[in-house]
């Protein structure tokens, strides 16, 4: 993993590496958010997920979220890594680390980051359920698109 604060990666995410990026001697609090692949969603079983991203724009949008946070919580430092490709149950899809001199800002900025990721970062999740597959249509997971022609592989 590189030293870039905002990354889209294809390898497993190492949470310690993300924490390292935001550690500072003046920071007494670090919050992390780890989003993992959940097996059960409203009674439906996920077998695995596939994430696809418009990579250059996704990195740009993650950096934009970082800028927004820098304005709202000036003393914080944030790092975000999102993984794409095939992910199995319990694997880490996204990790967010925020350091801050005091804890309140670290919690708030962290939660803001994940909310914004679900709004503006061009990343898409395809659920492979036990009974079929669906591209998830929004972050509330209640607007699934109908599955397109299968076997057309993602290229990005």
């Amino acid at each position, binding site marked *: 993993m590189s030293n870039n604060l905002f990354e889209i990666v294809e390898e497993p995410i190492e949470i310690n590496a993300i924490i390292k990026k935001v550690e500072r001697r003046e920071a007494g609090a670090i919050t992390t958010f780890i989003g993992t692949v959940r097996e059960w969603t409203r009674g439906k079983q996920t077998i695995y997920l596939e994430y696809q991203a418009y990579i250059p724009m996704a990195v740009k949008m993650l950096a934009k979220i970082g800028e927004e946070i820098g304005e709202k919580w000036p003393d914080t430092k944030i790092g975000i890594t999102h993984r794409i490709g095939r992910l199995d149950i319990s694997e880490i899809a996204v990790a967010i680390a925020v350091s801050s001199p005091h804890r309140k800002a670290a919690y708030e900025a962290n939660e803001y980051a994940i909310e914004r990721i679900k709004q503006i970062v061009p990343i898409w999740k395809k659920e492979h359920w036990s009974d079929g597959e669906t591209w998830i*249509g929004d972050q509330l997971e209640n607007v699934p698109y109908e599955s397109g022609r299968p076997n057309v592989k993602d290229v990005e």
Partner: protein
Amino acid sequence: MMITILLFAHLQETVGKDRIELPIEQLTVMELKTALKQTYPLLELDHVMTAVNEEFARDNSKVTAGDIVAFIPPVSGG
């Protein structure tokens, strides 16, 4: 010069490819969507966001040859 269109997620699967190149000099995002809907089964284009050169754009934004246009269905990262 071409306009490059990038497709993701279900749009990519619907069209069967991840990019389309069109030999057009200039048009608006809305005109581009209309043109694409005549060739491809992409009715959802009315409901997706558009990015031009990696920045979100409006339906009346101009697209010029050399630009990269991406259609951004509702995202589901995180």
